[in-house]
């Protein structure tokens, strides 16, 4: 059997597949259910410092071609985070927990990171790239290299102050023209790793009988299997520019072959979110099995050997 385990910023994962933030990510019980279905690690729904109301329904629409979502990052705030993270870690499952955090200001990112760090998740994912949440400039932080760097530096500083040695990964947006420049700015400001990529767009779908945009937020993040080439290209470019920075690659992964493609582009961990819609929560077991079959057929002993080997 091929060894599918990987090390990510010193944290061991039994297989490289992690649940993407925002899918089945609200409660410890739900995280455990996803681990039971084969995930190597879990990313929480984006956590805020305080309660944050999401958008009215409809918030998610999908067909055989794509999914559009504008859930609006709803969250009950820090107390609930503490309950759920504590509960999950208490079960001592072998699937590391990545706490995804989001904030409306650079300062809040620092405060939130510090509080979350106390709960000792294995990693913190800094979500500066949600297409529906805008920073001061009316654009997500991830769209401006300077903002991305400032958030990264602030989070690292507040973790250092709290003597928390939890690695952070900064989640980048695909909706930029200079993703390598932004990636470099984050790494130079202390990011231990990068998560590539958040949803594309935003896009819009209109119901033609009622002539109304369907999502209550009118537009939303675009995801699905057709967006994978964008993620592969970004991971490929970023890995070449920053070969030493580990990457969580995600965006349209549906099969074992997709996960292997993403790892060859340069990803160490591979996220799956919208894939749960197309193949059910069992997708993690299915993809792990498909990776085993491919590795056996192609003589790959350790999955880590294929990382970044695309020509």
């Amino acid at each position: 059997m091929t060894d599918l385990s990987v090390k990510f910023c010193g944290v061991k994962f039994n297989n490289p597949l992690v649940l993407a933030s925002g899918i089945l990510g609200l409660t410890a019980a739900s995280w455990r259910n996803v681990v039971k279905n084969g995930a190597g690690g879990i990313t929480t729904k984006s956590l805020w410092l305080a309660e944050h109301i999401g958008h009215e329904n409809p918030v998610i629409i999908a067909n055989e071609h794509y999914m559009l979502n504008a859930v609006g990052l709803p969250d009950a705030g820090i107390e609930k985070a503490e309950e759920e993270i504590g509960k999950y870690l208490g079960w001592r499952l072998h699937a590391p927990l990545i706490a995804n955090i989001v904030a409306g200001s650079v300062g809040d990112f620092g405060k939130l990171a510090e509080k979350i760090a106390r709960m000792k998740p294995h990693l913190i994912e800094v979500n500066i790239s949600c297409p529906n949440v805008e920073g001061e400039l009316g654009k997500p932080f991830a769209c401006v290299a300077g903002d991305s760097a400032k958030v990264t530096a602030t989070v690292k500083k507040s973790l250092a102050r709290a003597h928390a040695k939890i690695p952070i990964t900064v989640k980048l947006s695909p909706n930029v023209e200079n993703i390598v420049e932004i990636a470099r700015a984050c790494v130079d400001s202390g990011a231990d790793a990068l998560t590539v990529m958040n949803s594309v767009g935003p896009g819009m779908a209109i119901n033609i009988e009622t002539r109304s945009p369907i999502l209550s937020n009118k537009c939303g993040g675009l995801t699905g299997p057709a967006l994978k080439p964008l993620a592969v290209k970004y991971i490929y470019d970023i890995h070449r520019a920053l070969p030493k920075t580990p990457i969580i690659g995600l965006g349209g992964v549906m099969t074992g072959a997709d996960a292997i493609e993403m790892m060859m582009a340069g990803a160490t961990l591979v996220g799956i979110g919208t894939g749960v819609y197309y193949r059910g929560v069992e997708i993690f077991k299915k993809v792990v099995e498909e990776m085993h079959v491919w590795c056996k057929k192609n003589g790959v002993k350790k999955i880590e050997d294929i990382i970044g080997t695309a020509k």
Partner: protein
Amino acid sequence: MNNFPNSVRIKKIVKLTPLVNAYTFDYPKRAKPGQFVNIWVPGVGENPMSIAFDDGKSYTLAIAAVGNTTKELAKKRVGNYIGIRGPYGTNFSWKRGQKIAMLAGGYGTAPLYFAAYLASRENCKIDFFLGGRSREHLLFSDKIKRLKNTRFFPATDDGSCGFNGRNVPCWEIQLAKGEKYDLIMACGPELMEKAVSDIAHAKKIPAQISVERYMKCGFGICGNCCVDDIGIPTCKNGPVMDNKLVRKIKEFGVYHRDSVGRRIYLMKDLTKL
């Protein structure tokens, strides 16, 4: 795999009770009792609604006007467009000829009426325990009465119709008289369902219960409807669940989660749990 709303024109609107209208519209997919659709009122909102009836060509939904989406819906006329997607979730199931006790409350009556309509035609014997505030709030009572093989046990808080009290005690009287049931079905307020779950469990009678949680997607992605501690989404692995599974739901009858995932306790003093 298409979870975009289908625009359907309302074909018929019937006022069932002061609060509840029955909306009928043609729909291309067939449904089973217990399943639900998401009904979208453009520009206002979208909410899950059980299918009250499927005649093979059109659906009927029984919708209580309680908040801003359902109140907006109540203003719609025949011929207006609404958005429907689904059917979603699991359904009630039974075997030919079974003796079934159905415990229904509020809009929970809709799916159980639909089940009774079908099961009574597969010569199941049905005892339908319908609870509600008062006579005028008993949903589909005339239709239920007309079903063959069906004994109708209305129960009203104010005694204006049938048993003066809740439908569960009314059912317990039948149990005490030695009535034997092959299957129990419950759909309505959670505390009523909790009581049914406990009794069925104690008496080892198979039971199916409709577990409803705050829903957003309706197809197992957003996670808002996941129940503690088994963590499964009730929109996909439910709403109708076997009582054996319901017994594993720690939060059942205790709390649910609102639209930001915060715990909301059904009864204040249960917060210590």
